[in-house]
């Protein structure tokens, strides 16, 4: 069954220079394996398209049922250099909530 990521996770995003980080947190820790399988660095990169010029890295925090993504060259130069409305990536986490993921029937 296809569902948006918002069904099972919440997010928070922010900046470090021109890198945006997105924390993706499972509401229910039992859904963490679904996040690990479905929300890959490649899919996150594809989701943001031209907004993210660089690579996407993923880190795992099983203790928090969470993943952390680093989106490099994602903020138009970042901070004070960027010409974007969301120069600090504050809303990138919300954008990721629309990602469609496959929910296995058993969970």
């Amino acid at each position: 069954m296809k569902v948006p990521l918002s069904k099972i996770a919440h997010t928070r995003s922010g900046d470090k220079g021109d890198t945006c980080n997105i924390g993706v947190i499972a509401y229910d820790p039992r859904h963490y394996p679904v996040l690990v399988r479905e929300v890959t660095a490649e899919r996150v990169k594809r989701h943001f398209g031209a907004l993210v010029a660089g690579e996407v890295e993923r880190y795992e925090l099983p203790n928090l049922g969470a993943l952390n993504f680093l989106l490099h060259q994602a903020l138009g130069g970042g901070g004070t250099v960027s010409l974007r409305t969301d120069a600090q990536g504050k809303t990138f986490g919300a954008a990721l909530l629309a990602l469609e993921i496959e929910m296995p029937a058993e969970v």
Partner: protein
Amino acid sequence: MIRIANGQGFWGDWLEAPVRLVEQGPIDYLALDYLAEVTMSILQKQRQENPQLGYARDFPPLIARIARKIRERDVKVIANAGGVNPVACAREVVRLAPGLKVAVVTGDDVYPRLDEFLAKGYEMRDMDTGEPLAAIRARILSANAYIGAFPLAEALDTGAHVVVAGRSTDTALTLAPMVHRFGWQPGDYDKLASGTIAGHIVECGAQTTGGNCQVDWQSIPDMANVGYPIVEAEPDGSFCVTKHKQAGGRVDSHTVKEQLLYELGDPKNYITPDCVADFTSIRLDDAGPDRVRVSGIRGGPRPPTLKLSISYANGWKAIGTLVYSWPRALEKARAADGIVRERLRGLRLEFDEIYTEYFGVNACHGSAAPPNADPPEVQLRIGVRGADKKAVDRFTRELIPLVLNGPPGATGFGEGRPPVREIVAYWSALLPREEIATRVEVVE
């Protein structure tokens, strides 16, 4: 157990927050974080114009406002409000709140020492791009080393009511009282990592007590009176995160997890001047209403280098807007963007970047935004940046004419031409920590 509250997540945060933290219940320490990456350069410019300035000017009046209460309740304040002029900041605190003892931490400002460092062969390459600092030497506006919790703890050891620092890390403000009260040593890696993560959880103020929280945000109570976070720290390193009972907001594992992930890099290697903290070792437990217990944290030794926060002038920018209304608002805004770009080309102006957003359609989320076929209105938002201030200034004259000489239905030009702003960019680099010697002095 000691209670450490955070009443300011950045310079410009809610003015009432620290006052309420002191008045609404028991706390032992009040940490106030005033400095973002670019704040130092703004303060440096202010000090160049007036040698008595260069610090967070909201801070001394705040201390005057809470001076009586912090003495009655024996609350100590720790703040990085000193910016590039912590001594002047401390003197102003004493002037506005006579009788308070203020300890100042200095030594983080390395702006006057950059040439000495370059002569020693430190290249201070940018941690993102790898470029050596020499490439921007002439354009540097400020340079500070991030300092950790130990110099702040030494300042608390003087018995001061208020500790004023310059560029201390945000997390050090919370960790310092633990080092001071529990006698933690640089080799107590796990405890220092615990206090550092406590600092990370509270350093953005209400962002851990319900602010900016996605989880069931409509039901978070009384956000108009949101409580700022309080850490109840134990000598073994474990701690609880909570808030004053009568204050609004919420503290649970959802709000704390969101803040733990905020501005996080590699979770196993959260590097500070005090230790390296491992976020994958954190254990969180909901421990009653508005209370989360945090334990199990592991850490490693502090790095041999300190991070420098350097700001430099990097050209000019301007961002202008026009609003187009239905019907076909987006199509009109796109046509107007095409006209502006063609006219800029015709003028042979050079920019590093021209960037266009359609506010109401894709400004925040780009191509990841859901489709919106025919919105009732769209704001065209065009920004340019470049080294030539004249070119940027010329751009600011190219939007308003479109009201009469472009696609139909343009409005929203009441603000006039957009301002041209200097870009102050940020550079981070590493320096051997033995080059930095901090000092504590007391102002009364």
